[in-house]
């Protein structure tokens, strides 16, 4: 690996197949947190339920691909109700606790050895993308030259990107229209002052539920594209880190901004990939840029997660509105 590849790798990932589904997850979170103020710490659960509905139904039970997609959306909706009904009447932290705990519990159920004949245990499920793949019109590698860098994607990856970013565009327009509507203004009202909205006769509980549901359904699409991107679903794809990658993307780009998740995704994936590649490059055996005693190849891939946590903290402390957000827009619970 050369130093140039560190940058090219960053460019490839900035809009690559992985970035696509994190962008979708962040758009869902934007509805939850950016516009309604809901703390969904389990976006990975919505992704996981949808992705596993798709992969298991197709590969275990031989169900038609499109029916499986619809079932996945249904599964995410049921999950939203299950998590929302007990918590949305309560203080914000109860939803946070139930979602973060729920995501881990669901992950353990889907990864359980005793259910591996249905969900594939820790290895998960593969062999469900045939229908999706059959729609792929691209047959050769796509490469784009940026200056002296050559950025390359395989045909299938490029197909995942084109379809995924199209869905991102559709949802971004939908969010823009929804938030401009009277319905969207009620959501923002709930975020700013729940009691004021309640005193105007609005059913706050129901609006929060709708918000959780819509954001969760967008999360379900994130799950589908996560399944497409790797052509597999495994419990490790939906760990807590997944949720907080999406949170960092949202907070980086700027919550309560329609284009925030997109900007956040591109910046976040460029830097996180370049960072990982940099440390992997710097710890290559025999190179001695960073001695092995301080960091080996396994540790190199952890650095980005340590940095991720720090970035999340610093963002929340010093710039809660992110790069493109509006401070007044997101004055959450400041007094």
């Amino acid at each position, binding site marked *: 690996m050369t130093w140039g590849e560190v940058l090219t790798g960053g460019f490839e990932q900035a809009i690559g197949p992985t970035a696509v589904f994190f962008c979708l997850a962040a758009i869902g979170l934007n509805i939850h947190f950016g516009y309604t*103020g809901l703390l969904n710490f389990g976006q990975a659960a919505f992704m996981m339920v949808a992705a596993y509905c798709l992969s298991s139904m197709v590969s275990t039970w031989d169900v038609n691909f499109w029916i499986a997609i619809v079932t996945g959306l249904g599964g995410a909706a049921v999950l939203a109700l299950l998590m929302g009904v007990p918590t949305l009447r309560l203080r914000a*932290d109860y939803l946070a606790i139930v979602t*973060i*705990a729920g995501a*881990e519990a669901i992950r353990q*159920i889907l990864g359980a050895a005793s259910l591996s004949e249905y969900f594939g245990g820790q290895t998960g499920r593969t062999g469900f993308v045939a229908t999706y793949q059959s729609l792929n019109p691209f047959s050769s590698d796509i490469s784009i030259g940026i200056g002296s860098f050559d950025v390359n994607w395989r045909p299938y990856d490029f197909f995942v990107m084109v379809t995924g970013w199209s869905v991102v565009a559709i949802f971004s327009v939908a969010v823009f229209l929804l938030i401009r509507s009277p319905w969207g203004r009620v959501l923002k009202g709930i975020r700013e002052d729940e009691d004021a909205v309640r005193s105007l006769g609005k059913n706050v509980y129901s609006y929060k539920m709708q918000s959780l549901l819509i954001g969760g359904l967008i999360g379900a699409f994130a799950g589908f594209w996560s399944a497409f991107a790797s052509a597999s679903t495994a419990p490790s794809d939906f760990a807590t880190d997944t949720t*907080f990658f999406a949170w960092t993307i949202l907070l980086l780009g700027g919550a309560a901004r329609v284009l925030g998740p997109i900007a956040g995704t591109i910046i976040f994936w460029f830097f996180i990939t370049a960072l990982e590649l940099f440390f992997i490059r710097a710890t290559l055996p025999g190179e001695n840029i960073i001695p092995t005693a301080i960091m080996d190849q396994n540790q190199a891939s952890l650095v980005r997660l340590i940095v*991720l946590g720090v970035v*999340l903290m610093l963002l929340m402390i010093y710039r809660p509105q992110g790069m493109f957000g509006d401070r007044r827009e997101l004055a959450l619970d400041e007094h």
Partner: protein
Amino acid sequence: MVGEDRSNAQGRFDIPLPGTTIDVLGNSYRVVLDDETLPKGSYLTDPDAIERTFDIQTDQNYAVNFSIGPDIFAEDPWHEQMIDLAVSGIVLGLLLALASLGLSLVFGTTGLTNFSHGELFSFGALAAYFFDSTVGAPLILAALLAVILSALLGYVQDAGLWRPLRKRGTGIIAMMIVSIGLGISLRNLYQYLMGPDPHNYSQYTAVDPWNIGPVSITPKDLAAALICVAVLVIVSLVVTKTRLGKATRAVADNPALAASSGINVDRVVSVVWISGTALAGLGGIMFGLTQGFDYQVGFKVLLLMFASVILGGLGTIWGVMVGSLIVGLAVEESALFVNAEFKYALALGLLIIVLLVRPQGLLGRRERVG
């Protein structure tokens, strides 16, 4: 008879077969254990399995095992299982109580739901492991040092991070996200330093249970339980009898009112962070002692801690202890009905039911939490 052998110190015996490979292929041999020669006090797991017959089909060594001692795979009758599970449930519950007190008290005094509390639990287990394995200190000393380090971590965390955030008026929601970021960083830092593998301490590894009446409990479980009870009693006494304890309860009840009646809220919060982190660290060490640990043990247990504090009532002291015992018992007893893989899911189910029926928790004060 083709030969006989006496087992060596490792319990192994070898009986060479006579002749070439061609001679013995296809033959059938019988291996009989002479049970008169077994050491005093030991017995075969299955008394009928004293002889084995097998056919030689390939050119390789054939292994014959005679298992000795109690049958570890035997199914106990269900009431014995229930008692055994209750014992481990109580031990788990006590550990949870120790670990969740800090979570609940930090919430009570500052309003922060600390999502990095699990990492403080891991910190105790890992720090003790560091002193135990790398430095080579005896485990009791290692545990003491780890608890002191945990207390220090609690102080540093409050003084260096949370107090400045409170001073600059950062909102509770922002602080929760900060705690998430801190948790992610710490968890991965632990993995960076300790690797992804599970660990155990070098001492007190015995698993032979003691039988006390109908109850069987391993010595280390018993020790962990007794230490937990002792610490919980001390904490209860401090909270009810001392001025500091009363001040803590006052701040947990209503910080503004406590401040206006002359209580130094910052000092109380600092004490809560120090003691809460030390207790979480101690909980982590005990958990590591009884079940082993890895870099993310605290994050896994955090779900159970949340279930405990919500069941008992967020911000309460007695509620946490009751809630922890119930969660510990429920989680362990569930093994009677469902596969152990699902016990965390069961804790979550419990949590959701509590939120539906009694959101303020068993001992929480009725108030509008919405």
